[in-house]
């Protein structure tokens, strides 16, 4: 501590310059990322006519929630479709997330705790998948899905998203289990727990932040995915949101406010998820970094 205080006056000045440069840079970056979202929100409150005006209205003269009520109203065709896409997306993403966690938790635990033949090879094989861009697997996976008879089913998407999401999930969670001292489980086993009980009562609660972070990753990955959903599904009633939203482009010219309202609604679950579980997420990222 004493050394740090002694150093302070010397190192303060140059750091300040950098700090301001950093702040300006971050502000620009923030504007760059937030502006489109704000514009999306503003546009979604306009009427179709107001959205097309030039010069643009910075704030709609007659703001309306009509676009939202139309999307959420199951009695008209637009609302019906939107809600169906929304539901499809929710179903596919949730299923992917649950399966990813159910598989990744024991897999990551095994990679972290047990020494078995082929452990290293297997672990790298798991990661190998993530070294290639997703598009490369589009055609092979499509052929595979056709062969499995899964084209035009949500199963094809869940399966595909798992092939992307699982390696990352296993890898993330393994880091967590590596950081939980093995002595805790040993203590639990001596205290009368079976291996499974030691895992459930001691290890699981400690790895909850990691599991939640991993779940959020999986969910967002599946929720936003476009190319595979676009390729594997052709039937309207099965489409997920990222693909389904496209339909706003084609119908009687582009309905910008409707599109923006739909996009906004699409980001709601992710934002809500993040806000609710944020504290676990941050804890997860920082805890993984510090060894205890």
């Amino acid at each position: 501590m004493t050394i740090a205080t002694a150093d302070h006056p010397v190192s303060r000045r140059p750091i300040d310059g950098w700090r301001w440069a950093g702040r300006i840079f971050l502000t620009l970056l923030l504007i760059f990322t937030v502006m489109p979202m704000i514009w999306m929100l503003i546009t979604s409150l306009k009427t179709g006519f107001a959205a097309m005006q030039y010069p643009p209205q910075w704030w709609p003269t007659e703001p309306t929630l009509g676009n939202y009520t139309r999307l959420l109203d199951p009695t008209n065709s637009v609302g019906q479709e939107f809600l169906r896409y929304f539901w499809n997306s929710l179903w596919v993403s949730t299923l992917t997330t649950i399966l990813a966690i159910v598989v990744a938790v024991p897999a990551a635990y095994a990679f972290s705790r047990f020494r078995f033949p082929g452990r290293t090879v297997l672990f790298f094989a798991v990661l190998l998948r993530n070294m290639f861009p997703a598009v490369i697997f589009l055609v092979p996976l499509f052929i595979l899905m056709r062969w499995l008879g899964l084209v035009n089913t949500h199963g094809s998407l869940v399966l595909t998203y798992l092939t992307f999401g699982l390696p990352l999930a296993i890898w993330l969670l393994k880091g967590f289990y590596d950081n939980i001292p093995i002595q805790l489980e040993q203590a639990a086993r001596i205290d009368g727990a079976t291996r499974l009980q030691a895992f459930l009562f001691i290890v699981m609660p400690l790895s909850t932040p990691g599991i939640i972070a991993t779940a959020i990753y999986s969910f967002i990955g599946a929720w936003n995915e476009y190319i595979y959903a676009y390729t594997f599904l052709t039937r309207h009633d099965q489409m997920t949101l990222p693909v389904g939203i496209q339909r706003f482009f084609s119908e009687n010219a582009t309905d910008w406010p409707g599109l923006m309202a739909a996009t906004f609604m699409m980001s709601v679950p992710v934002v809500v998820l993040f806000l609710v579980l944020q504290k676990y997420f941050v804890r997860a990222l920082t805890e993984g970094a510090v060894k205890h």
Partner: protein
Amino acid sequence: MAEIVLQHVMKNYGSLYAVNDVSLTVNDGEFVALVGPSGCGKTTTLNLIAGLLPMSGGDIVIGDRLVNDLDPKDRDIAMVFQNYALYPNKSVYKNLAFPLQMRKLPAEQIDRKVKEAARLLDITHLLERKPRELSGGQQQRVALGRALVRDPAVFLMDEPLSNLDAKLRVQMRSEIKRFHHNLNATIVYVTHDQLEAVTMADKMAVMNGGLLLQYDTPANVFANPVNTFVASFVGSPAMSLIPLDAVTHGTEASLRSPEGWDLPLSPLNARKIASSSTSKIILGARHSTLKLHKSEVPGSVPGKVYTVEPTGDITFAQIFINGAVVNISVEPSVLLTPDEQVFIEFDQDRMHLFDAETTMALQAA
């Protein structure tokens, strides 16, 4: 309470034998210290007794049950870990209650036992805290408490005091000793601090490189170390070891130094030399058995003062004899200066002779 029997216990990781053919018996109610340098297999041995690792060979009996294939939970043991291993997300109360809950005791009985253990260890005021809100000494007590809430047959402790500062360590040392006395518990206690072992244990098992070198009372290990490793490991300052050549003529024998002096040996020591096959000998002597003289007396050998360390009530000095450093202790009134020529007298009854090739202690035939 129960006895523990290890028979030819082995544990290897590939070609590395972490525990190599260890056999020993811990009697009911005995306090046994497992000592040895870092990496010698102490923790591994303890984990094998606990059943946390599968054995590569051998048998372990606890009480009158062969426990080779029993889960840790079925061995009726309690363990205190090197780093305490308290459950970080549970309060102290829940840490103590966990072993009882796992054994499905009724709630009011759990409550009673937890409070009793807490009172015994003086941690009642900490019950609602989380482990990270405790000091090292408090964590240590909680770890001890978690072990003793359920009266197991055997206590296993892995360097429970190694994370504490010197003062607290001395205090906890006597508390554990009293705890052993009160409960008459069977305890296997791992430490790499030989002083802890000597002061606390009924018996000590000295290990090195996975092998059990000697298993005896601290007094016997101190008095009759089986080889040079045990000799220099037990006792502080360490026993001095001087490599010399043995010369025999008839039934008499002496140790000869290339520096040109001869140390005649007593008849018993001469018989030890006679029974050995080699003439390369290591002479061992503890500081307290050596006498320092300023001028030559019969049976003394010349040396040169290297360093002098006064500690107040006793002065330690290191003397160069035949190229080896020899520790001695003298009265503080004796004044020594570095490079001074002195003469060291050996106590023939309390000196140790080792075979320089096998490092084993020589026995009289």
